[in-house]
């Protein structure tokens, strides 16, 4: 009995298989509105239907009538499908589920992107890569610039954009930097490790980068420094107005010579400690555009250990504006460039940014300075006069071998005039050199 049943079963299966093998061009189960009419797919009519890799369910089933309704008393005339979306949603769930809906989805024009019958691509999309469909509506100029983002180049628009609906603007899969970190995981790791993160890197990468294509390297929206100046326009104005500009702004990586655009360990996303950054370049003698020689600062600091306060704090910015200024050597404020200068408070604005201006204004003191003879302020005597000695006359502004970074010698024409500052029981003396036997009595 079992054997008989198996024979019948195999016969049935074999019969079915043979039918489809012998008559492959005809969908054997083709159904239309009128069951008596011939199949839609024959070797002469709609012959290619169902031949591609991805076939719509009803087509594969030969159920053409589920979408195409035959007109009454007609054999090959069909009702016009007025609302395609409605027809699709009679089987498929609505795709307009989120707050923002792609226009074709909203208009029920599913066949803008999907072939209703068949396609060689998944989900019966009309073209592959999917970007070929996108550019039929969206301006393709924005994808054709010199540097193209990977997914854009690969035509994979839907890696960032939802094709149907999303809760995010521009139908994005996710908002802000989160979207980018989906692929740029190494950047995410770097930012987690960074102590100071640039705001756009944390919130929205597209503030600086174009997600599609651009004419600038690294998909930047503009070239540096113009891109930086979009937000940091105070720096732009400052640079424009200033007389002296730091060369670092215009050479090599410009702003990125010192700042990391994403994240760093130091404030203002400096890539290293401020002074280390400066000494990266100022570790050799340099010549400015005006032909002035700049000293090898690294060597100077290595050889002279009595450093000026800001240098002890590893902060060259205490005196220099790293971008630009109106004063020589990009100093933040006025400072006499020469050995002699008539005293005014403004002349020494740089020094008096941190040090007491009255240091050179008060003739008698016991508290303002230790550089005194009794209660006579020797700072006052040296500086506050018509032919006043500038601070640089006695102090080496960066570093020297003597306390309070006092100079060993002063350039006096072709002669390096020795200061010969020595501490004495009564204070100190600068002789022979500037003075013969004058003593500085320190009264502490």
């Amino acid at each position, binding site marked *: 009995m079992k054997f008989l049943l198996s024979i019948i079963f195999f016969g049935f299966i074999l019969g079915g298989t043979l039918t489809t093998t012998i008559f492959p061009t005809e969908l054997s189960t083709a159904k239309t509105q009128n069951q008596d009419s011939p199949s839609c797919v024959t070797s002469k009519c709609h012959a290619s239907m169902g031949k591609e890799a991805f076939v719509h369910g009803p087509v594969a089933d030969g159920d053409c009538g589920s979408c195409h309704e035959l007109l009454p008393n007609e054999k090959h005339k069909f009702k016009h499908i007025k609302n395609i979306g409605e027809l699709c949603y009679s089987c498929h769930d609505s795709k307009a589920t989120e707050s923002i809906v792609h226009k074709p989805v909203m208009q029920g024009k599913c066949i803008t992107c999907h072939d209703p019958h068949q396609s060689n691509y998944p989900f019966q999309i009309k073209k592959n890569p999917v970007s070929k469909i996108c550019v039929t509506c969206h301006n393709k100029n924005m994808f054709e610039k010199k540097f193209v983002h990977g997914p854009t180049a690969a035509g*994979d628009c839907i890696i960032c954009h939802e094709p149907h609906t999303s809760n995010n603007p521009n139908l994005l899969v996710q908002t802000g930097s989160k979207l980018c970190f989906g692929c740029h995981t190494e950047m995410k790791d770097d930012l987690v490790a960074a102590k100071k993160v640039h705001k756009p890197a944390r919130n929205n990468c597209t503030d600086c980068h174009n997600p599609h294509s651009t004419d600038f390297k690294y998909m930047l929206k503009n070239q540096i420094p113009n891109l930086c100046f979009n937000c940091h326009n105070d720096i732009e104005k400052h640079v424009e107005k200033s007389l002296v500009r730091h060369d670092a702004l215009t050479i090599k990586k410009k702003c990125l010579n010192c700042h990391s655009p994403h994240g760093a360990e130091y404030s203002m996303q400096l890539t290293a400690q*401020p002074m280390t950054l400066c000494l990266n370049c100022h570790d050799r003698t340099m010549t400015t555009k005006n032909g002035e020689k700049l000293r090898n600062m690294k060597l100077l600091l290595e050889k002279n250990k009595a450093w000026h306060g800001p240098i002890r704090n590893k902060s060259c910015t205490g005196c220099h504006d790293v971008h630009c200024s109106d004063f020589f050597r990009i100093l933040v404020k006025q400072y006499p460039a020469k050995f002699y200068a008539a005293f005014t408070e403004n002349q020494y604005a740089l020094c008096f940014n941190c040090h007491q201006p009255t240091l050179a204004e008060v003739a008698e003191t016991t508290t303002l300075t230790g550089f005194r003879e009794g209660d006579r302020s020797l700072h006052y005597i040296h500086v506050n006069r018509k032919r006043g000695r500038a601070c640089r006359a006695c102090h080496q502004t960066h570093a020297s071998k003597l306390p309070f970074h006092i100079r060993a010698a002063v350039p006096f024409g072709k002669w390096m005039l020795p200061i010969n500052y020595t501490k004495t029981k009564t204070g100190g003396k600068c002789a022979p050199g500037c003075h013969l036997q004058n003593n500085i009595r320190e009264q502490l």
Partner: protein
Amino acid sequence: MKNITFVFSIFLFFFLFSNLCLGQNQADSSLASPFTLKDFNGKQQSLNNLLGKNLSVIIFWATWGVDSIKMMSDLQKLYVKYRKKGLNVIGVCVEQQVINDSLRKKIIDTVKQKQITFPLLLDYRLQTFKLYYVIAVPTMFVIDKSRKILFKLAGYPIVGHDKLFNFILEFFEGKPRAAAKKRIGRKVNASAVRFYNMARFEFKMGRSFSAKGHAMKAAKLDTSFIKPLLLLAKIELREKQISNAAKYIERILKLKPNLSVALLLKGFLLAKQDSAKKAIKLLNDIIRTDSTSALAFCYLGYAYGMNNNLKQSLLEFKHAEALSKNDYRIPLLRSEVIQGLVN
């Protein structure tokens, strides 16, 4: 006696002078000298009375110093935040040697404009300025309730400023969460990582075709990068291209012979390729080294099933289930085995 006093004063001078020349960020173990100064109302205030319960910051400042004002504003924010936790900020104005009424008004106006609310004192004769050997403003001393100097900073340097504020924050909040350390080891080509991530996303979305393309690019960009190869094997497996999947697994095992994920997949693929006995041997070897892998038991069950040993197969699936109840692959493969054997 005079000589002794003189030697002692010279020693004191050099001692204090050397302290001044040292890096100012370094904590100083010395004590902050006590002082008494007048506040804006003319009332005498002593340091001891103003000390915070836990921590105090003495800032020497002046209206003529731009950085002084910036630092005052920064400290005001800290003061507001930690006042209740025992922080006090004491502003000592060292405007000039002599402070007359108009200067006093200027100071008060600046303070009002900057909305400073912490105690402020006027150093009329710069005695405290001298006492603390202040050379530049702003100069800050962070002291504890016993006046021990914990931190000293002059000026407004970028790094020093951060250090000072971190010191205070750490005092009240404890050590901040350490930033994640950078991964150590071979750095994978960044483009390969990006393509791999794109492939992973496409695979998750069920788009094997695109996923395969991206994963192949990733594997090409960095030939030692294992993850795209593993993904390619999984894609091929999903597409039922068993021999292709096996090729990728072989490539992975050449790079990392003991990679357990690859070995497991190899066992599973062997079972699928009618080499159930080899699969059983391999999977048993894996289980011997790691008996906690539910997936190994699951694949072993599948391999026994392919070897027509239903009883052992069901037993291995049971082991797998005991280790991981919710792994969807266990019932899926078990049903495949049962169906295969029934048919």
